[in-house]
């Protein structure tokens, strides 16, 4: 039973670790916490029976590592948009093009606006 819990726990811990490195790192909380809880149960149960606790301990440590990584990312790194000069230039160019298009149609625009106003 403890082995089974530990195996489930290590799957959760590894999943948590992998996800904690992705942009959606906050989702790592689910597998990491599950891994931690299962690992802890397996550890305490194995310890009670004086068994070998190294595997459950690894599960607990890996889960904790995933939780620390995702918490650190949340606290230390702010979401930012890259300073994209290409995009900025594109928006400026778009405005210039728009003005030309509007001016080309100015006569028609005049009539339209007069009617609207």
């Amino acid at each position: 039973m403890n082995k089974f819990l530990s195996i489930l726990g290590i799957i959760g811990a590894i999943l948590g670790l992998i996800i904690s490195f992705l942009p959606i790192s906050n989702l790592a909380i689910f597998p990491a916490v599950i891994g931690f809880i299962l690992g802890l149960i397996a550890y305490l149960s194995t310890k009670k029976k004086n068994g070998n606790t190294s595997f459950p301990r690894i599960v607990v440590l890996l889960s904790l590592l995933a939780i620390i990584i995702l918490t650190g990312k949340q606290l230390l790194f702010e979401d930012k948009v890259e300073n994209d000069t290409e995009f900025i230039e594109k928006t400026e160019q778009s405005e210039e093009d728009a003005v030309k298009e509007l001016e080309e149609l100015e006569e028609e625009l005049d009539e339209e606006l007069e009617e609207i106003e």
Partner: protein
Amino acid sequence: MFQKILYISLFIGVGLFSTSSTSVENKYIKSGENLTFTASFNVSGIMTDVAEVKMQTSTVKTKTRELLRLKCTASTYAKFDSYFRVRDLYESYVNPETLIPSLFKRNIEEGTYKKELKYLFKRKSKVAISTLNKKGRVNFKTNVPIDYNTMDIVSAIYSIRTLDFESFNIGKRVTKQLVVDSKVETVTVKYLGKEDIKVGKYGTKTCYKLSVGVGAGLKNVKGGKYIWITADNDRLPALIKASVPVGNIQIRLTNYNK
């Protein structure tokens, strides 16, 4: 998904504006306004911030006119750029007093997908000339029949902010026509009353709550689509929530200056 996020935010905004066939009187939207939003997607019950949405206004001068440029951009946060980079630009060039658009431009870049769309509103001829550029279609033109008050998605979202909500009874519905994907769509907006909403660092603000749906009624709307607009002279779109088949989208105001 990102296109959906911006579109939902814009679309939700869109519905509310003009309650009748007359033009709105713009008392709230001025040049120099900068609004910044964070777009989040709900995955497994956890909100994940995915993109920044900006809405900016500026004055544009042609040879004889002064127009208001309404610009909306959506950009994914840097951490997502390696996986799925989004740089969307939506612009509307409108009459500053009525917010009636003369030109609408949409330029989207989502991953490897690129598309440009332009509507030139010729109100005298009651037609909007739509020009589409995307893979497989270059300068594909379509004439879209419009009336004097047909708007685009960007001018519409700004227009909703100018409605006289104080005179609305709860449950009041407003419909508006706008050009979306080279077709005229009717958007219905329902006023749901006032609610207090936390607006980031600006604290709690009293807002007008509205639900928005595409079509003449709200019956066919899947999931809820709601917008909260501050009940003050700024009329800021403080929060947008929408349900989509794969989760929930939330767009919240994080910063503004006027």
